[in-house]
């Protein structure tokens, strides 16, 4: 499958765009953002709270296999229009990043396909760069861990 998800990050800007087309009616795409059990499945996180309404709030928590919490994030929902848009903040806990503002737009393409456009706005250009690099840095760690595993097996 080719790259269905596109990231548009222009230099020297505070925002970035993530776009993706789905083989799903827009109602189902939107539902995946509203039902806590479903969000938990595809985000791979525990949904502590998800109040899908204007001025509602949300809270996610991810643990490692030993039960230690490795990731916590929360935010508030500023706008909520079913099958059209969600405006919300996103803030990671215990990490020195400012909250970010997210505009999620849901569009119907055909009865069976839809499109999501996610605009994320960061406090600074440095903050955006740091966020973009997180999975990259994580990849480096994975490489380290893999090396360590291999070395341990050799012992």
């Amino acid at each position: 499958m080719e790259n269905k998800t596109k990231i548009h990050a222009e230099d020297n800007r505070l925002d970035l765009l993530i776009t993706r087309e789905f083989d799903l009616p827009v109602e189902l795409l939107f539902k995946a953002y509203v039902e806590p059990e479903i969000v938990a499945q595809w985000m791979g996180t525990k949904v502590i709270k998800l109040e899908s309404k204007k001025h509602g709030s949300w809270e996610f928590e991810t643990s490692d296999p030993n039960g230690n919490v490795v990731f916590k994030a929360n935010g508030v929902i500023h706008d909520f229009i079913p099958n059209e848009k969600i405006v919300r903040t996103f803030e990671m806990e215990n990490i020195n990043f400012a909250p970010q503002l997210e505009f999620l737009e849901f569009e119907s393409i055909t009865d069976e396909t839809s499109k999501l456009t996610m605009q994320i706005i960061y406090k600074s250009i440095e903050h955006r760069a740091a966020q973009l690099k997180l999975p990259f840095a994580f990849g480096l760690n994975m490489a380290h861990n893999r090396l360590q595993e291999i070395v341990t097996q050799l012992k």
Partner: protein
Amino acid sequence: MEIRRDVFQAIADPTRRAILSLVAIQSMTPGAIAENFNSSRQTISKHIQILSECELLNQTQNGREIYYHLNPIKMKEIDNFIEPFRKMWDDRFNKLEAIMKNYKK
């Protein structure tokens, strides 16, 4: 056991990053590279080997000497640090799509 090497693994090590920045300036022999480090020549030659396996270094033979130089094409893969970020979202959305297809009638 065969170890698959990738560029990310290669640059996860500070000595290898230092080697890359040295040869980025000019082509160097293994001996000249090793002179810049306190580690043994053997250790440095192991690092060079890993970098070569990842195709970050190319070598040319000049008489009896081997010269290492940077492979800029491979370095671009590293430069494209946005790719893991895109991949992370792509994986999530693929999962979302697969889950929601079960709700289709």
